[in-house]
C-alpha cells in the first residue's frame, strides 16, 4: 500500500520499528514465510498473507505492505534478514518494534546463532551463548538466548547447513541438530531458570544439581553481584580470589590473573591457588584491618580490644577507627549524636560514610539511575551519579587536564567505581598509586608499580589510557613507596605480638619502636624475620606453611619432606631397612603416580555428564558463600532488625541490610542445605543415592496394574533399581495368560538382568521403543530436589506417549494433567506408599540392618492414562474396584499403623442408620485422623457398604458378598446414591457423565439388571433432551430412572433433605435448561460469596446443601478428571451432612488449599468454556452458568459404550 513504485530503483530499503501481521492483524513471525535461499529459486510453500508494518528512512516513512518471502545473509558483520515484498523488492529488517520482539525472538536468535557459528566454526556452545547474550540486540530480553530458542527452527538450520559448507562443517551446529532430545531436557531446566529470574519472589532454587552448566554459570555470576568483585589491589576484575574473612575483599591471587592491570597480586602460583581451601587474607587472619580513613592497621577483634570497627552494612567490608569515621560521618549525617564516637567504640553498629552521598547526604538507590552510587576505592567517599563532580570523569579530557577516574560496570549494584579527587591518578597505572593495602606481618607487597606492563582498568577501558611514561612521575611514586615501606616494616615487626595496643596510633614511630623492642624476641622467632628479603618469597613461605595442613596429594614436595622425616621412626619396626636409594626411588614413583592423577582426568574418567549428575554446588558453596560475607550478612540482619525495633526508619535498615541481601541469604541457605545434605541427613545417604520400593509394595502395584495390561504391551521401567518390578509383573501376567515385553533401564547395574539395559533414561530415543499405544511406563524415578528429577523423567517418558504411566512420585511433581499434552488420571493413591515403602540399598544401620525409609510424606502412586485410552482404563479401574480400592489399601495401611479402634467402631456405626451418629463419628475420626479426609471418607464408604466384611480383600467379589447382606447392601446403594446425587446436581458435573457409568458399573456388578435399566434410561433421556449443556443430561437417568425403588426410600428415610434437594435440583435444572428461568437467580446470589471465595461453579442448591457442596465440587474440579472417585466420596460427605454445621468439620480446611491451588487453572478453563459455549447459549443466564461450570477435561472420558453420543459431547466441550 504505502510502497510506491518509484522506490524500486532506490537502494535496498530497510525498515525499522517493524512488525508483521497476518490478515487478521495478529502479530506473526516472518519465519512463517517461505525462505528464499537464492535469488533464482522460485517460491514455494503455502501462501499466508503476511503484512509488514514499519518505518523506513529513519522513521520518515511509514511502511505497510504484503510480503511473500524472507531470507537471511550471514556473510556480513551482522546477520541481515530481509523480506521480499509482493512487488519483488527486498527489504532489510533492522530493529523490530518493541512489542514485537518476543514474537521473533527465536528466529532472530537462530539466525544470529548460525551467523556466529559460521564466523567461528570451531566454537563451543558456551561461547556462542555467551556472545549472543552479550549481543545488544538481545539484551532487552529478560531471558538470555539459549538452546531452547533454536528448538523450533531445527529444520531451518538443517537446511541452512545443507546449503552452506561452512556451517555444515561446524561441529556445534551438528551436535545441536542431533541433540534435540537433550535439548528438550535443557528446556525444562531453563524454564526453571526463568522462574528464578522472576524478580520480587523468593523462589527456591529448583534442582540445583541438575541445572545445566550455563545456568550454573549464570547463577554464580549472580551470586557475586552483591559483593565487591574487583581486585582490591588494582581495582580490576577478572579471575579473583575472594577472602573468606570479614573484609569480603577479592584479590588477584596470581600474577597472571592481574596481568591486564599490572596488578602486583598476592603472588601465589596457580597450583597454590587451587589448593587454597578457605582463603583468609592476612588482615582477616590476624584480625588486623586497616582504617579506611587513615589507612593504619588496627586490631579488629571485638574480643581483644578492637581499635577498628566494621561498617554494619551487609555488603560493606570497611573498617574504621571510631574517631576517623565520626569525623566523616558528621559531614554527611545531620543529627549525628555527640557521643557517636564513643558509641562506635563500644561496638554499636554504624553505617559508614561510604553509604551517604557526599554532596546531598542522601543514600543510594540501586534502582534509580540518577541515584546510583559512585564510590571511591580509596576512601569512604561516595556520590550519586547526579551529584558526581564534573572533574570525576568517565573519560580523559586532555585539554582540561582531566583524567578518567570513573568506570561503570566494574562494581556490583550498579555502582560506579571512582577515585575521588584526593587521589592522584598515576599516568601509567590509570589508578592512583597502589599503596593502599597493608597486610599485617608482611612487608608491603605492592612495589612501585611494575613499569614494564601496560596498565589499565578493564581491557575495554584501556584504549583511552595514556601510555606515556614520565620518569619524573615514577620516581615520585617510588619515592613515596619507599617511605611507605619503612613504615610498614615497623608494622610488620609488631605484628607478631599479641599485646593489644590500646594507644592511638597517631604517634606511630616512637610507639612502634617501643613495641618493637618489647616484641622483638617474638618477632625474631617468627619466620617473617628470616624472609625479609622479598615479599613474594615471604608470602609463598607463609602459604607453604599454611598449605602444609591443607595441601592435597599434588603437593608432593611437602609430602616427600614429611614422609622422609617420618619414615625412620615408622620403618624401624619393619625388619629390613630400606636404603636411601630405594626409598628415593619409591618416592619418585609415588610422585610420578600422584602427579599423573589430575582433576581433569578424574572428571573425564568418571564421566559426570549423565543427565542426572550435571552440576555440583561445590564451587558456589566454597567460593562464593564465604564465611565473611555470610557473617556480615547474618550480623547485618540482626542489626537491621534491632534498628527497626529501636524505631529507625526502614531506609536506615535497608542501608544495613537490603532486601537483596535477604534474598541472597535465603538462597544461600538452600544451597548450603543441598550441599550439606549428606552430612545433615547422615545415614540416609547411600552409595548411590537410590531408594528402592519394597518388594511387597511392588507386588501390590503389580496386582493392580496387571488388569490394564494387554497382550503384546511393553512394560518399561525407566528407573528399575533392583529390577524386581518387571519380574513380578511378568510372573503375574503369565499367571493371567498375557504375554508382554519388558524393558528396564537404570543408570546402575541391577540385581538381575531381566530385560535390563544399563542406560540413562534420558538417552533413550523415540524409535527404540514401540509405539505409545503399546507402552506402559513408569515407576519410581529419583525425585530430586523439589521433584526436579522426577519431572525430568516424566517429561522424557511423555515423549513416548505411552498409553499408561504408573508413577511413584512426590506430590509436588508437576501433575500430568497440567502438561502440554495432558494425561488423565485413572486413579491415585496417597496412602499406598506410606510408612516403610522404600529401602535404601547399600545403607546399613547400626544393627546391620538395611535401612528402611520411613516416609515423612508418602509419595502418591498414580496411574495416568493417555486421553484416548482413558475411557478404557477407567472401565477397567471400575471393574476391578480400583477406584475404591485405593481407599481399601490405604485403610489397611492406616489400620496397621494406628490400630485405632475408633475407626472400627465407626464402621459399625455406619451400618446403623443413624445419621447423627455418623456425623459425630465423622468429626471424631477426623480429629483423630485428621490429615487425610479423602481417606476417611473412603473408609466411610467402604465401611458402610461392607460392614464388617473382610476389609482387606481387594477383589470385586466383595460387592457380591455384601450384596448378600441385604441391609448393608442397601446402605451401600444409598451411599452411592448419596455420592452421586450431589455430584449430579452440581451443574458442573462432567463428573456426572463419569459418575454415571461408574455408578452403572457398580450397580452392574451387583445387579446387572440395574445396569441395563440405567443405560436405557440415559439413552432415552439424552435423545429427547436437546439442551445445550450435556453435562446435565447424563444425570437425568440417574436420578429419575437409575434410582430404583429399592434405594430411594432408603435415602429418603435417612436423608430427607437430600431427597428434597435432589428433586428441587431437577426441577430447577429443567427450567434452567429449557427456559432459562429466573429460578436460578436467587440461588446464584445466595451462593455468590461461596462462588467468589471458593471458585466453585454450582449455582443451584437448596440452601441446606449449599455449604457442603461447594467443597465437594471444588474439590472435584480442582483435581480434575480422575478424581471422580474422590469427588464422589466427598459428595457423600456433602450430601450426608445436609446439616449446615458440617461446614465446621475439619474436612474443610483440608479441602481449601487444594481448591486454592487449582483455582487459577479452573479459571482458565472456564474461559475456554465460555467461548465455546457462547454461541450455543445466547441467554445470559446460561452463559453465566456455564462459566461457573467446572473444567471440562473429563468430557473426554465418556465411555465409548455409553449411549450418550460421546462425539457430540466432545464437539461441544472442546
Amino acid at each position, binding site marked *: 500500500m504505502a510502497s510506491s513504485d518509484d522506490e524500486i530503483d532506490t537502494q535496498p530499503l530497510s525498515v525499522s520499528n517493524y512488525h508483521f501481521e497476518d490478515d487478521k492483524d495478529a502479530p506473526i513471525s516472518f519465519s512463517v514465510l517461505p525462505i528464499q535461499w537464492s535469488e533464482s529459486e522460485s517460491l514455494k510453500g503455502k501462501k499466508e498473507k503476511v503484512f509488514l508494518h514499519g518505518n523506513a528512512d529513519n522513521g520518515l516513512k511509514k511502511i505497510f505492505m504484503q510480503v511473500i518471502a524472507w531470507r537471511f545473509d550471514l556473510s556480513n558483520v551482522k546477520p541481515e534478514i530481509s523480506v521480499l515484498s509482493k512487488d519483488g523488492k527486498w527489504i532489510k529488517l533492522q530493529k523490530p518494534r518493541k512489542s514485537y520482539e518476543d514474537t521473533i525472538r527465536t528466529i532472530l536468535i537462530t539466525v544470529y546463532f548460525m551467523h556466529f557459528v559460521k564466523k567461528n566454526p570451531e566454537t563451543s556452545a558456551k561461547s556462542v551463548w555467551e556472545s549472543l547474550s552479550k549481543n545488544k540486540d538481545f539484551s532487552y530480553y529478560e531471558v538470555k538466548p539459549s538452546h531452547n530458542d533454536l528448538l523450533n527452527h531445527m529444520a531451518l538450520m538443517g537446511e541452512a547447513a545443507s546449503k552452506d559448507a561452512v556451517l555444515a562443517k561446524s561441529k556445534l551446529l551438528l551436535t545441536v541438530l542431533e541433540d534435540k532430545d537433550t535439548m528438550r531436557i535443557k528446556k525444562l531446566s531453563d524454564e526453571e531458570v526463568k522462574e528464578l529470574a522472576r524478580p520480587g519472589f523468593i523462589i527456591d532454587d529448583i534442582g540445583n544439581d541438575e541445572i545445566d552448566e550455563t545456568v550454573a554459570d549464570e547463577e554464580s555470576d549472580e551470586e557475586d553481584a552483591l559483593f565487591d568483585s574487583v581486585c582490591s589491589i588494582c581495582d580490576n576484575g577478572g579471575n579473583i580470589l575472594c577472602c573468606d574473612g570479614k573484609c569480603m575483599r577479592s584479590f588477584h591471587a596470581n600474577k597472571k590473573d592481574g596481568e591486564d592491570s599490572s596488578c602486583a597480586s598476592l603472588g601465589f602460583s596457580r597450583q597454590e591457588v587451587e589448593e587454597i581451601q578457605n582463603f583468609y587474607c592476612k588482615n582477616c587472619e590476624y584480625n588486623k584491618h586497616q582504617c579506611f580513613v587513615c589507612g593504619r592497621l588496627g586490631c579488629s577483634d571485638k574480643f581483644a580490644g578492637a581499635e577498628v570497627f566494621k561498617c554494619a552494612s551487609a555488603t560493606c567490608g570497611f573498617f574504621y577507627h571510631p574517631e576517623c569515621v565520626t569525623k566523616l560521618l558528621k559531614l554527611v549525617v545531620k543529627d549525628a549524636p555527640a557521643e557517636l564516637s564513643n558509641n562506635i567504640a563500644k561496638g554499636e553498629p554504624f553505617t559508614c560514610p561510604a553509604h551517604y552521598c557526599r554532596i546531598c547526604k542522601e543514600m543510594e538507590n540501586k534502582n534509580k539511575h540518577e541515584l546510583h552510587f559512585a564510590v571511591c576505592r580509596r576512601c569512604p567517599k561516595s556520590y550519586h551519579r547526579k551529584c558526581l563532580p564534573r572533574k570525576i570523569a568517565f573519560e580523559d579530557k586532555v585539554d582540561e587536564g582531566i583524567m578518567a577516574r570513573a568506570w561503570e560496570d566494574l562494581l556490583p549494584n550498579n555502582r560506579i567505581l571512582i577515585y575521588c579527587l584526593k587521589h592522584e591518578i598515576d599516568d601509567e597505572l590509570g589508578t592512583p598509586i597502589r599503596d593502599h593495602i597493608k597486610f599485617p606481618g608482611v612487608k608491603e607487597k605492592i612495589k612501585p608499580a611494575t613499569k614494564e606492563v601496560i596498565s589499565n582498568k578493564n581491557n575495554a577501558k584501556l584504549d583511552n589510557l595514556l601510555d606515556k611514561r614520565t620518569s619524573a612521575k615514577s620516581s615520585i611514586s617510588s619515592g613515596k613507596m619507599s617511605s611507605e615501606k619503612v613504615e610498614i616494616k615497623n608494622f610488620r615487626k609488631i605484628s607478631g605480638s599479641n599485646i593489644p595496643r590500646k594507644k592511638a596510633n597517631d604517634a606511630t614511630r616512637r610507639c612502634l619502636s617501643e613495641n618493637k623492642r618489647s616484641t622483638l624476641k617474638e618477632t625474631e622467632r617468627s619466620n617473617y624475620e628470616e624472609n625479609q628479603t622479598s615479599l613474594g618469597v615471604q608470602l609463598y613461605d607463609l602459604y607453604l606453611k599454611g598449605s602444609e595442613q*591443607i*595441601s592435597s596429594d599434588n603437593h608432593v614436595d611437602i609430602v616427600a619432606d*614429611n*614422609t622422609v622425616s617420618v619414615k625412620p621412626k615408622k620403618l624401624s619396626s*619393619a625388619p*629390613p631397612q630400606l636404603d636411601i636409594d630405594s626409598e628415593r626411588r619409591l618416592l619418585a614413583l609415588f610422585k610420578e603416580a600422584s602427579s599423573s592423577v589430575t582433576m581433569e582426568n578424574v572428571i573425564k574418567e568418571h564421566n559426570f555428564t549423565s543427565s542426572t549428575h550435571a552440576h555440583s554446588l561445590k564451587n558456589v558453596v566454597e567460593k562464593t558463600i564465604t564465611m565473611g560475607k555470610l557473617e556480615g550478612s547474618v550480623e547485618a540482619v540482626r542489626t537491621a532488625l534491632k534498628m527497626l525495633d529501636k524505631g529507625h526508619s526502614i531506609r536506615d535498615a535497608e542501608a544495613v541490610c537490603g532486601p537483596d541481601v535477604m534474598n541472597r541469604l535465603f538462597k544461600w541457605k538452600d544451597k548450603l542445605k543441598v550441599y*550439606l545434605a549428606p552430612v545433615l541427613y547422615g545415614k540416609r545417604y547411600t552409595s548411590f543415592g537410590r531408594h528402592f520400593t519394597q518388594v511387597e509394595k511392588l507386588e501390590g502395584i503389580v496386582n493392580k496394574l496387571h488388569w490394564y495390561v494387554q497382550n503384546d504391551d511393553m512394560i518399561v521401567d525407566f528407573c528399575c533399581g533392583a529390577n524386581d518390578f518387571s519380574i513380578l509383573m511378568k510372573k503375574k501376567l503369565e499367571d493371567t495368560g498375557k504375554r508382554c515385553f519388558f524393558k528396564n533401564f537404570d543408570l546402575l547395574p541391577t540385581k538381575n538382568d531381566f530385560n535390563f539395559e544399563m542406560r540413562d533414561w534420558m538417552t533413550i530415543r523415540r524409535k527404540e521403543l514401540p509405539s505409545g499405544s503399546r507402552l506402559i511406563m513408569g515407576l519410581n524415578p529419583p525425585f530430586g530436589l523439589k521433584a526436579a528429577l522426577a519431572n525430568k523423567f516424566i517429561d522424557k517418558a511423555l515423549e513416548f506417549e505411552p498409553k499408561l504411566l504408573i508413577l511413584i512420585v512426590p506430590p509436588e511433581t508437576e501433575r500430568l494433567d497440567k502438561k502440554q499434552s495432558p494425561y488423565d488420571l485413572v486413579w491415585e493413591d496417597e496412602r499406598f506408599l506410606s510408612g516403610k515403602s522404600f529401602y535404601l540399598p547399600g545403607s546399613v544401620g547400626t544393627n546391620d540392618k538395611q535401612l528402611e525409609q520411613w516416609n515423612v510424606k508418602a509419595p502418591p502412586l498414580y496411574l495416568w492414562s493417555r486421553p484416548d485410552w482413558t475411557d478404557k482404563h477407567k472401565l477397567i479401574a471400575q471393574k476391578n474396584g480400583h477406584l475404591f480400592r485405593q481407599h481399601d489399601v490405604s485403610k489397611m495401611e492406616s489400620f496397621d499403623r494406628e490400630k485405632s479402634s475408633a475407626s472400627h467402631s465407626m464402621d459399625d456405626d455406619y451400618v446403623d442408620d443413624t445419621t447423627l451418629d455418623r456425623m459425630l463419628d465423622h468429626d471424631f475420626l477426623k480429629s483423630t485422623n485428621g490429615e487425610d479426609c479423602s481417606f476417611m471418607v473412603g473408609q466411610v464408604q467402604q465401611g458402610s457398604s461392607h460392614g464388617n466384611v473382610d476389609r482387606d480383600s481387594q477383589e470385586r467379589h466383595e460387592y457380591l458378598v455384601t450384596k448378600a447382606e441385604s441391609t448393608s447392601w442397601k446402605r451401600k446403594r444409598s451411599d452411592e446414591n448419596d455420592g452421586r446425587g450431589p455430584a449430579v446436581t452440581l451443574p458442573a458435573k462432567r463428573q456426572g457423565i463419569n459418575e454415571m457409568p461408574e455408578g452403572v458399573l457398580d450397580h452392574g456388578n451387583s445387579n446387572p439388571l440395574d445396569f441395563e435399566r440405567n443405560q436405557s434410561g440415559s439413552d432415552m433421556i439424552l435423545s429427547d433432551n436437546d439442551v445445550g449443556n450435556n453435562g446435565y443430561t447424563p444425570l437425568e437417568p440417574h436420578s429419575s430412572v437409575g434410582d430404583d425403588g429399592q434405594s430411594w426410600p432408603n435415602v429418603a428415610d435417612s436423608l430427607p433433605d437430600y431427597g428434597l434437594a435432589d428433586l428441587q435440583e431437577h426441577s430447577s435444572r429443567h427450567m434452567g435448561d429449557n427456559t432459562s428461568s429466573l429460578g436460578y437467580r436467587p440461588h446464584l446470589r445466595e451462593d455468590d460469596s461461596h462462588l467468589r471465595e471458593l471458585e466453585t461453579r454450582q449455582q443451584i442448591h437448596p440452601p441446606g446443601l449449599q455449604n457442603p457442596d461447594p467443597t465437594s465440587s471444588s474439590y472435584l474440579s480442582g483435581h480434575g478428571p480422575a478424581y471422580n472417585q474422590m469427588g464422589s466420596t466427598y459428595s457423600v460427605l456433602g450430601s450426608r451432612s445436609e446439616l449446615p454445621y458440617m461446614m465446621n468439620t475439619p474436612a474443610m480446611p483440608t479441602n481449601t488449599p487444594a481448591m486454592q491451588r487449582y483455582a487459577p487453572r479452573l479459571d482458565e478453563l472456564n474461559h475456554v468454556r465460555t467461548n465455546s459455549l457462547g454461541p450455543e447459549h445466547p441467554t445470559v443466564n446460561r452463559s453465566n452458568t456455564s462459566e461457573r461450570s467446572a473444567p471440562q477435561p473429563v468430557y473426554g472420558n465418556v465411555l465409548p459404550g455409553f449411549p450418550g453420543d460421546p462425539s457430540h459431547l466432545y464437539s461441544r466441550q472442546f
Partner: protein
Amino acid sequence: MESSAEEYAAFEEKVKRTVYLDNLSPQVTESVIRSALEQFALVKSVSFIPNYLGTSSLPLCALVELDSAKKVKEVEAMIKQYPFMMTGMPRPVRARPSVMEMFDDRPIKPKRKMKCCWLEQSDPDFEVAKELKNLTRKHSAEITLMHNILSKEEEKLSTQQAETLKVHYKKYKMIESIMTDRAAHTLARKYNLAVADE
C-alpha cells in the same frame, strides 16, 4: 590332598565369579557388604581375608562371590565410578576381579606335584633361595613404606575435608540461626518480601 578335575573346574568358575574388595574399613561386616552389593548382584558368599601383615589384625580385604562373572565387572565398575558409602561415610574401596591365589582354601591343581625340602648351605640353589627371601623382605618393606605414605596422604586429605566441612557446616548453622529465631523472616516481612516458609 589332591582334588578332582571337576572340583578344580568348579573352583575356577568360582574365582571368575568373585570380586576382591580391598581397603575396607575395619567396621565393615559381611552384612554391610551384602547390602551394599546386593542392589547390583546376588551375593553368594563373603569371606574376609585375614590380615597377617598389617599393624592391626582386622581384615581389610574380602572376597565376595557373586552370581556371575558379568556381575563382577559391573560391581568393579560401580565401585570405581561412585564413592562407595557405608553408613553414610564414603570409603575409597577398591575392587578388582579375584585371582586364584587369593583363596586360601583353594584346591590343588590336579596333576601338580609339589614337594618341600631344606636346602643345605652347600646346595647350589641356596644362594638363589636366600636372594628370593631377601627380595620378599624388601618388597614387604617397600610396601610398608608406601602404605605409610599413603595413609599420611589420606589423613591429610581427611583433615582437610573435615576442615572444609566444618567451615561449611558453620556457615549453615549461622544461617540457620537467623532462620530459626525468625529474625530473617521478620525482617523480610518488614521489607515486604515474599518469603517462602520452610
